[in-house]
């Protein structure tokens, strides 16, 4: 029996974020295009995050969700919304993949939300309004985006890739929703159509002057009035604008104190699309003190506006995958050709070895989705041996029990490297492919790829965790497969 009634409002109970570790130096991009478009040099400060070849909105969402769930109970999550404009599958629910890889219970309520850069705030408002959530249940909103940009475009500099997750529940919220408002308006400063890789963009001065931000002053005033708040009552202002200057300009136009505008993170990671507003919210929560209020905006074909307030519980809250940690875990990248290859805008000669057919037998994949997506090993109930992949007969030759294995998740556990190599013969989009055996401290071993070990010593005995990544892409059939890889613990 839960002691929490549905009468208590939903609040934010946790948050997490994930930024790909690769941070491209903007000056490298701009310098490469200087011959063609020298104007790009003006926006060439800072770095932008970008996905490795094996990351996408789904894998980043899983990383952010797992970070948010580190402070909560994944078993209580009963609903998950995945917001993005760059989901890899148009018809195959991406949120279902994220839910299983995040260690959530099977068969919960899930949905993909997209279509606009305010999909993240829209999903958040909907989750706050979710009357169907049972008393003790939690709800997870994850937003992730990995927008591609045409080489030489301002978008190439401005965009970043990343994800943020907000966990909602009724028990000990760290922030509550004071109020919100939302307006739709078909203002087309940019769009991306079906089958197109890149955005089409109208003049940015028009977008700045006539766009959704122009409607904010009246909406902010009305919302504050409704909440009996003065502009001075807003402590932190989270605006997913292109720059700090632009965010401050919008704040000022709304009668808000520009000094209270949160860092829009354009210099550190770039604009994360639909994930940007949730990322800024997480960043504000990470820095806020109990009692502080946060105004959050989502912009795109209108706007969403939310006013939230941190609670006393925030003082005790510790996030394992906080925004600061994600921002700090970056590695400067100056290899622009590799960046293009990972973006898919530069086709490299990969040789005949790369022609191997990667056709997926979907009936096989579904039969084993617990092992593949959930990284569920089998634990023998007769002898305790943990084994991957799970089989009907226990691998311990002193046991040999049949049909004795129960699901045993390996994700989130620590392993040690048993053997390894760096292989330059096998085809891999980011050679050499590193792989080997790892052994989990609490039992079970896994033949696995190693990724993200730049800056960490990969050797026998090294401590590793696992991360959900793209395993390979079947370009012929437009499918991609996911599996787990070993990362530094």
């Amino acid at each position, binding site marked *: 029996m839960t002691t929490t009634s549905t009468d208590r409002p939903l609040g934010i109970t946790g948050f997490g974020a994930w930024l790909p570790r690769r941070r491209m130096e903007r000056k490298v991009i701009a310098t490469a295009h200087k011959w063609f478009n020298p104007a790009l040099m003006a926006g060439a400060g800072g770095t932008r995050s970008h996905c490795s070849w094996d990351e996408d909105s789904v894998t980043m969402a899983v990383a952010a969700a797992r970070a948010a769930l580190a402070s909560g109970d994944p078993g209580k999550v009963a609903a998950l919304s995945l917001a993005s404009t760059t989901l890899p599958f148009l018809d195959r629910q991406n949120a279902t993949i994220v839910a299983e890889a995040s260690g959530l219970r099977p068969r919960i309520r899930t949905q993909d939300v997209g279509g606009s850069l305010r999909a993240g705030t829209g999903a958040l408002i909907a989750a706050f309004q979710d009357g169907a959530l049972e008393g003790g249940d939690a709800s997870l909103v994850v937003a992730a985006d990995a927008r591609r940009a045409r080489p030489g475009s301002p978008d190439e500099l401005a965009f970043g890739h990343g994800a943020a997750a907000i966990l909602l529940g009724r028990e000990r919220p760290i922030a509550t929703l004071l109020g919100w408002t939302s307006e739709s308006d078909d203002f087309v400063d940019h769009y991306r159509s079906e089958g197109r890789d890149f955005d089409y963009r109208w003049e940015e001065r028009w977008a700045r002057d006539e766009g959704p931000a122009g409607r904010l002053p009246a909406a902010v005033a009305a919302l504050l009035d409704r909440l009996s708040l003065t502009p001075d009552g807003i402590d932190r202002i989270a605006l997913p604008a292109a720059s700090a200057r632009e965010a401050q300009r919008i704040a000022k136009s709304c009668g808000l104190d520009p000094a209270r505008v949160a860092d829009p993170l354009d210099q550190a990671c770039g604009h994360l699309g639909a994930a940007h507003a949730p990322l800024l919210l997480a960043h504000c929560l990470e820095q806020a003190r109990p009692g502080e209020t946060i105004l959050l905006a989502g912009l795109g074909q209108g706007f969403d506006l939310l006013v939230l307030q941190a609670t006393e519980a925030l003082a005790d809250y510790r996030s394992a995958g906080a925004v600061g940690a994600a921002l700090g875990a970056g590695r400067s990248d100056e290899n622009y050709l590799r960046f293009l290859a990972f973006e898919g805008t530069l086709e490299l000669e990969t*040789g*005949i*070895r790369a022609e*191997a*057919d*990667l056709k*997926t*037998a979907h009936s*096989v*994949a579904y039969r*084993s989705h617990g*092992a*593949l997506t959930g990284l569920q090993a089998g634990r023998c109930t007769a002898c305790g*041996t943990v*084994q*991957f*992949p799970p*089989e009907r007969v226990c*691998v*311990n*030759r002193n046991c040999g029990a049949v049909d004795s294995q129960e699901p045993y998740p390996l994700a989130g556990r620590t392993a040690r490297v*048993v*053997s*390894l*190599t*760096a*292989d*330059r*013969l*096998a*085809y*891999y989009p980011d050679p*050499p*492919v590193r*792989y*080997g*055996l790892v*052994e989990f401290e609490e*039992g*079970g*071993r896994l*033949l*696995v*790829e190693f990724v993200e070990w730049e800056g960490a010593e990969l*050797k*026998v*005995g090294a401590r590793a965790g696992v991360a959900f990544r793209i*395993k*390979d892409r079947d370009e012929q059939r437009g499918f991609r*497969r996911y*599996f787990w890889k070993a990362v530094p613990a």
Partner: protein
Amino acid sequence: MAKGIRDKVAILGMGCSRFGERWSDSAEDLMVEAFQEALADAGIGVGEIGAAWLGTSYEEIGVGKSAIPLASALRLPNLPVTRVENLCASGSEAVRGAAYAVAAGACDIALALGVEKLKDTGYGGLPVRTRGAFNDLWMPSMSAPGLFAQLASAYVAKHGVDAHDLKRAMAHVSVKSHRNGALNEKAHLRREITEEQVLKAPTVAEPLGVFDCCGVSDGAACAIVTTPEIAASLGKSPLVTIKALQIAASDGSELSHNTWDGASVANTRIAAQRAFQEAGVSDPQSEIGAIEVHDCFSITELVTMEDLGFSREGRAVQDILDGRYDHDGAVPCQIDGGLKCFGHPIGASGIRMLYELYLQIQGRAGPRQLRDVRLGLTHNLGGAPLSNVASVNIIGRLD
């Protein structure tokens, strides 16, 4: 209690094609080349063969499925013919089938032929192929050198040897095999190399360089077996008989159970012990005159010396550097150049190993001839250290 195969089957004739990049020859051509030599050696006609086994692995770029390609290429007159596949141990598997048929009395004379046509892929290295519908969904993109290279990382960690000393011992393995292969006119790679060349070669899969890897070759090898009585009646002398045929396959322990340290090949150890017992060999060090092991990579040969028991645990590096496995060492190894230089047409390799020992035991090995080889051992490994099938066979003089 089973008595085993010892001395129940004699080798009547053997043949082996030249190994290498046989651009102008098909797998069928290579089969005929090896078979004609074996027939002549056996002194029989095709009509006297009672059954045949074909060992080949990459049928998708070679002969296709089934044993029919063997039957058709050799025009075997509607014989019972079987195709076997056990990765790189497919050739040894074919011999096992033929020898068991003779031992069982199912036929008087049986043929085992292994063949592989690897150089029709359009790229270097072994062909890329599926590891099964489920395994393809989770196993990394891997190559054979990468799978075996991991032995080195675990070996260094287990025995605390210096990584450079290990690299030097691995280099010595290859230098030795190139020296041996240079004397073999059927070998794929016949040029001697230096330790410095090996150490400076481009990396394939850390710590394996180009010269730590065996040749990727086309070739075929075959054996005609019969009973010792029939062999003697056909005037065969000296008689070479099979002393042991052992094979051990992974039960999933290496991949899925925390009981393997990654620095050895468990099945080699098991198959070797069974083979010594079946052959009645109590002191392999003094009784075995020559060995042909599965040196697909230098590190494989190194750990195999410990797995077979010729080097003590952790001692292979020093033994190799001391020349123990050289042509003039205590346990001559890869006298014909091994997989490294004779070459490695997958399905043919297990039989190619027997071919060299068969010649050595009869004193027919020409410039490579060792003194007084009475017993020889082959070690033929299919798969990778973390999932494999290991075959250890022993042949020797009957008297």
